[in-house]
């Protein structure tokens, strides 16, 4: 199945058939965790052709949220990654095609090159010796050790420790080589490390409080751009790091301009005040017009997020699978896609993005069928009561649906859902809240009936969704993850445990394929469509490459240049 598209996210892999464990590591375990190409996105993508010899000009990148967290290991949001990618470097990063590319590491560790033991427990990483921090200090293995230890420091306000907490016995064997042991085999770690930025020991080790220092507001990294200035509430300027160890940078300056209103952001792109519209990009209703603008290029690309109705499976009617199936059948998905999202997204049945190697083809396809939905509810004993609302055993088929207030498209989607579900005797009421409210305890502690939400289920680029669907990950029941759906399935738990310790790509694909079938069959979520983003780039600006494996598509500004 992986070869049905001829791609595994790793160039040439399909020539060799399904790889064994050795081949998997040969190619880099992380590479196997990558994606296949996104046709739509890449059809429009320009590859850098002839970049200038010296950095030239500047790029003004507009973002609808303000980056405020510059320490790349602390809790931050997607927009902060826009800065981290420019200022810092990971050991290796993921290309849009899913291939892992060494960055601070000399090579991606595999069994073949001796970087990984066959059991996946010993990691030996060889590092580049020509890398310097922005202040001129040489980068060494001590920095990697320090970063991994900082993540596990109980006093440090780290984002999360998933995977990192398994790292033991870190040994610096040479300035350019580091070894460690994993407490248990954990295949997603390759992917996690590709999104873990290394921080400077020589600056941070001196701090008495690792959570506060001037570094947090003027970071020093090894990335292609060095910190310039920040005007709070307005912009952040980064300057080219001419001693950068990798390709680029080709522009002198990058200015991240904070423009909170998406309409205003688009207007400034239209009037030429900004060169690139990032993060939330261009609103769907402007996309058609944007495509007609002279001197502008519009990229519509898939994201890893899946827009779905999240049912609280412990809430009365939703505990009945027949109800979930009936509700799913009664959703006119195509109307939501066409009428409200301008036909830009694509339907999906899985929590895995369709471009991923782990995506399971052939899942049962949703069909808008209110008649079947009605029949299903009739058969399940949900009879229509007063006002046409169904009920069973004294429980009415009525519930609330919540989403972030002010999100116009989602609010319109709710209106369509009300109509669709009313037709089968289900009553939905809207209960929207501001972002700071809904995503707090209400979501975390499963206090909702249902939520309309977009979630990136992947762990980095890995399909291990233990924190999302594992029965031990329900926060409302003291779990450690974010299984707010309260989904419990022994079979899912078994598959999740198996997948996380498998290192054979074919086996993993089967395991996560089975999991996708299970989740689809159980309707733990009611998927609507795979997320998308429309971004604008000024003509003449080369090198923009959307990357579904990163949270933000301006991950590679080091490759951008003005033609």
């Amino acid at each position, binding site marked *: 199945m992986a070869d049905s598209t001829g791609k595994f996210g790793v160039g040439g892999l399909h020539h060799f058939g399904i790889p064994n464990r050795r081949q998997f590591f040969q190619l880099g375990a992380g590479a196997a965790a990558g994606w296949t190409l996104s046709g739509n996105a890449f059809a429009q993508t320009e590859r850098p052709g002839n970049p200038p010899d010296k950095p030239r000009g500047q790029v003004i990148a507009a973002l609808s949220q303000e980056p405020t967290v*510059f320490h790349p290991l602390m809790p931050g949001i997607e927009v902060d990654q826009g800065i981290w990618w420019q200022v810092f470097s990971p050991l290796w990063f993921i290309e849009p095609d899913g291939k892992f590319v060494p960055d601070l590491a000399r090579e991606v560790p595999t069994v073949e090159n001796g970087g990984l033991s066959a059991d996946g427990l010993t990691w030996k990483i060889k590092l580049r010796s020509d890398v310097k921090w922005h202040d001129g200090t040489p980068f060494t293995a001590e920095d990697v050790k320090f970063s991994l230890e900082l993540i596990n420091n109980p006093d440090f306000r780290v984002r999360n420790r998933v995977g990192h907490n398994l790292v033991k016995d870190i040994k610096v064997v040479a300035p350019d080589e580091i070894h460690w042991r994993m407490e248990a085999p954990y295949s997603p770690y390759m992917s996690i490390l590709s999104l873990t930025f290394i921080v400077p020991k020589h600056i941070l080790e001196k701090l008495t409080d690792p959570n506060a220092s001037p570094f947090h507001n003027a970071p020093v990294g090894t990335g292609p751009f060095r910190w310039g200035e920040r005007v709070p509430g307005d912009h952040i300027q980064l300057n080219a790091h001419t001693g950068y160890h990798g390709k680029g940078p080709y522009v002198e300056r990058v200015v991240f301009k904070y423009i909170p209103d998406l309409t205003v952001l688009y207007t400034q792109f239209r009037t030429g005040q900004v060169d690139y519209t990032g993060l939330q990009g261009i609103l769907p209703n402007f996309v058609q017009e944007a495509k007609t603008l002279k001197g502008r290029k519009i990229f519509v690309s898939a994201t890893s997020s899946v827009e779905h109705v999240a049912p609280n499976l412990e809430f009365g009617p939703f505990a009945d699978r027949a109800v979930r199936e009936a509700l799913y059948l009664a959703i006119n998905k195509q109307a939501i896609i066409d009428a409200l999202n301008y036909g830009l997204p694509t339907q999906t049945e899985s929590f895995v993005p369709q471009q991923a190697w782990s995506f399971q083809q052939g899942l049962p396809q949703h069909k808008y069928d209110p008649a079947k939905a009605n029949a299903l509810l009739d058969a399940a004993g949900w009879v229509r009561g007063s006002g046409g609302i169904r009920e069973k055993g004294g429980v009415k088929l009525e519930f609330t649906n919540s989403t972030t207030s002010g999100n116009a498209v989602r609010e319109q989607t709710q209106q369509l859902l009300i109509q669709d579900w009313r037709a089968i005797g289900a009553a939905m009421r809207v209960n929207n809240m501001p972002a*700071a409210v809904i995503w707090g305890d209400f*979501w975390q502690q499963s206090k909702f009936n249902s939520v309309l939400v977009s979630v990136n289920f992947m762990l980095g680029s890995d399909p291990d969704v233990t924190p999302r669907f594992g029965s031990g990950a329900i926060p409302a029941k003291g779990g450690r993850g974010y299984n707010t759906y309260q989904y419990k399935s022994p079979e899912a738990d078994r598959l999740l445990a198996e997948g996380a310790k498998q290192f054979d790509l074919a086996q993993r694909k089967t395991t996560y394929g089975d999991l996708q079938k299970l989740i689809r069959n159980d309707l733990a979520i009611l998927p609507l469509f795979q997320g998308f983003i429309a971004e604008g780039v000024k003509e003449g600006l080369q090198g923009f490459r959307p990357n579904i494996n990163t949270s933000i598509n301006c991950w590679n500004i080091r490759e951008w240049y003005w033609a």
Partner: protein
Amino acid sequence: MARYVVNRLAQAIMLLVIVSAIGFAILHLAPGGPLSQFAASAQMTQEDLDRVTKQLGLDRPLPIQYLDWFGRMLKGDWGKSYRDGEAVLSVISSHLGATLELMATATIIAVLLGCWIGVLGALRRYSLFDSLATVGAMIALSIPTFWFGLVTIYVFSVKLGWLPAGNRQTVGDGSFLDLLHHLIAPALVLALVETAMWGRFMRSSMLEVINQDYIRTARAKGMPEWRILTVHALRNALLPMITVAGLQFPTLLGGALVAETVFTWPGMGRLFLDSIGYRDYPVVMGILMFSATMVLIGSLLADILYAVVDPRIRVG
């Protein structure tokens, strides 16, 4: 006079304490919290969120948190922003300049234009000018600032290309002309409502004054009309405007909040909005205390000024 000032100061301090307690309670009792943003978008587990909550001291009882915050505030430590770790006073001061620039420009425009319209309207009561000014003021007061801002951008930036569609300056160009160029649209939008208000107040005040006996007496004495207007009428009509000016700060701040959002102006209004959205408690409390202090100072100054120019106030 000194006793009057001391009394008013004591009232102001009491008010500040009340504002801080109510503000703190409302902010913290509102659902959600500063970590919700991470729960929504990043791969943070509940365990991670609980750990960070404890590290930030947000798991302590509310009264303890309040007393801790209040005690530190009295010592000049207004806390650190949860978003970027910067000291609150530093965060506020980094946004204050932009807002003051916008508010000051809008106020100058509003006072000059509003007073002129008001005086002229009073002198030519029920004339075509007065009617137009009245209708214009009603429209200005009814137009949502947000909408007017967007229309201004559409007309002057998108269609005519005369003004920038936002921002305080062009990156890399800090010239005065560039700043002025960027200031025109947001200042005019913010000044619209202010002008209407000043115009209406000024008209009423002027009408009251020009119907007074001493104006009639001045005319009877044969005093030139311009002198009656400027020396007697205008000076006295401006007296009630001291109060208006003192109480304009909250209105201006509210307007600035909208104008700053539409024109991507990096000021306090937008900071306040963002900070509420992120539940950045220390910054929200900082802005709240700062704004309350400014309002109270404005009001206090207006009262004192009024008492200075009109001794009857002190008796009351």
